[in-house]
């Protein structure tokens, strides 16, 4: 039974994504003066060169980290809507750590590790504010995580464009990080860095934890029904732990932006990676392995829209619309019996729909 329904759900998701891609194809056909060229640029552009393809892989990495963060919280029945802000504080923490350790004699791998750890800690701390508020007063994580993240985004943008801004640059950005302190590039001259394999390994690791271990089973139990979980001896700490890890993953996602392709902290650099991560997690039904193709799909649409705007007369924003359409179609197929929905109803909406 269980497997049957899971297979059906996977099939339904693939059909929905196929429909989304078919709809996506309408745009180049309708908007371009040279429809076939635009269509080719959009869908095949990202695969036209190893440079473009590796760039696609690299841009999927921060997204995958944020998606894994969202998925982990979903599993525990928690809506962490603060991924965007958590990624931003993570990016800032990583940039500051590298800046602070730049003059030291530490070997580059240690500096990178410290930067990633700082990013995780920063994202985690931001997420834990919401857990603390919930424990103390029952304020909905759904709302506080968004509000705190929004405030953090404003503060991070202010810091990067203000006191931390590189004096030598016209960009609203912190100083460039020296090449040796960035994640190693795997296929120069492309942007592909260690970020992509790191993200993939994290997805595999989380799959083993979340879907193949006792802890993962307990987490799911906890997410389905907190009262029942408590009566079976599971502690509230599980929720706090998963929120902390969720924030940490988003924070590391932010660090990948800084230490990977961009090479510095720039104002507004998260650019929706947290929200898109949430969408990817929803499309993947909170499955860490499913998040891999889903984040690649999103990165593909982004890269396609970029290629379409360079090689043809398309808008680079087209991908935003396509991603939203994909999410719409997926959600329409989900139906009932899916746990975040119940959480939203029972926890946030307060009564059944």
């Amino acid at each position, binding site marked *: 039974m269980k497997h049957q329904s899971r297979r059906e759900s996977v099939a339904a998701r693939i059909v929905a994504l196929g429909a989304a891609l078919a709809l996506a194809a309408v745009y180049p056909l309708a*908007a371009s003066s040279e429809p076939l060229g635009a269509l080719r640029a959009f869908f095949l552009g990202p695969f036209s060169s190893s440079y473009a393809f590796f760039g696609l892989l690299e841009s999927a990495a921060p997204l995958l980290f944020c998606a894994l963060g969202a998925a982990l919280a979903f599993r525990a029945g928690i809506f962490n809507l603060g991924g965007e802000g958590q990624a931003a504080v993570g990016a800032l923490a990583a940039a500051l750590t590298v800046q602070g350790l730049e003059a030291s004699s530490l070997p580059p791998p240690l500096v990178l590790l410290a930067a990633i750890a700082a990013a995780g800690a920063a994202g985690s701390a931001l997420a834990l504010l919401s857990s603390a508020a919930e424990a103390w007063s029952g304020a909905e994580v759904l709302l506080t995580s968004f*509000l705190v993240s929004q405030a953090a985004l404003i503060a991070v943008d202010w810091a990067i464009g203000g006191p931390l801004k590189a004096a030598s640059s016209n960009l609203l950005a912190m100083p460039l990080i020296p090449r040796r302190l960035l994640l190693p590039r795997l296929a120069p001259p492309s942007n592909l860095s260690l970020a992509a394999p790191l993200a993939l390994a994290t997805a595999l690791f989380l799959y083993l934890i979340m879907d193949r271990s006792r802890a993962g089973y307990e987490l799911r139990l906890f997410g389905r029904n907190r009262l029942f979980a408590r009566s079976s001896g599971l502690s509230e700490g599980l929720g706090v732990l998963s929120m902390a890890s969720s924030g940490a993953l988003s924070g590391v996602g932010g660090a990948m932006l800084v230490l990977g392709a961009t090479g510095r902290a720039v104002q507004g650099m998260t650019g929706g990676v947290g929200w898109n991560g949430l969408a990817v997690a929803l499309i993947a039904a909170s499955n860490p392995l499913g998040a891999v193709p889903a984040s690649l799909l999103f990165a593909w649409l982004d890269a396609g829209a970029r290629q379409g705007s360079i090689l043809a007369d398309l808008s680079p924003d*087209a991908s935003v619309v396509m991603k939203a359409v994909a999410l719409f179609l997926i959600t329409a197929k989900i139906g009932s019996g899916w746990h975040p929905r119940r959480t939203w109803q029972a926890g946030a909406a307060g009564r059944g729909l």
Partner: protein
Amino acid sequence: MSLDRLASFLADALSAAAPLAVAALGGLLTEAAGSLSVALEGSMLVGAFAAAAAAKASASFAVGVAASVGAGVSLSLLVGLAAGALRADVFVAGLAANLLAPGLISLLSGALYGTKGVLSSPALLTSSHIRDPLTRLPVVGPAVFGQETMVYLLAAAAALLWILHSRTVFGLRLRAAGEGNEAARAAGLEPGPYRLAAHILAGAAAGLAGAALASHVGAFVPGISAGRGWIALVAVYLGAKRPGGVVLSCLGFGFLIALSNAAQGFAAAPAELLGALPYLATAIALTLWKRAARAEGRKDSRGSAGRS
């Protein structure tokens, strides 16, 4: 603080609270119908864009406002239909709508105007009633009677939504639909159409609120909604899901926004950073309110108290 500055501070607070209140009351209708829409943010954004675009094309304020309502309804209808006919998760559909809105706008803006930036639309500006006799009253005069016309339009819309929710048969049935499918059907009521109606009204309200944001500056600016739709959602909770409470919460937010605007006048505080204040203060207010509600054991906190 001089009386003049107090008056302009109050005026600022009221004009910031008005669009929030309208959007939040729209959100309250969906909550009452048992299908809370998180698409307020997206509806506000498309409302603001449609208002600016339509007013630019027609040079008419009324056409701009009508377009904002139409755009807000369209986006919200998408969520309502997905949640109703397609049995989608209303929360996820709302998120999708919020992701869709900025993409759609920059796509349209690029195609129609060749810009993704500010879309100036002077026809949207409404005049302030600074010369009316009532504004001579001390403090209250300029704050309450000296607002832009748009603010009074919002006040009227808020009053209408409030009456609709609490004083009409439609509102009663809407709330019955929110008691759950079984309960509603037992009362001889098919809840689906009422939920869809709630989504339509919420879209109209949020769209109008978006038009007000654009009207205030006479232009559409990317990201002009800046999380206000989410703040309106928080107001639904803070206001204990009652219209009076919701409006009161929005007045509180308006006060906070005015405070962060006023604080930007002092040289010592970095202006950009103060923009974070309303969000932080809202999170703190929500937490404190929940704590107080839990301490009093009020029934409104039952759901979350039982959860944690």
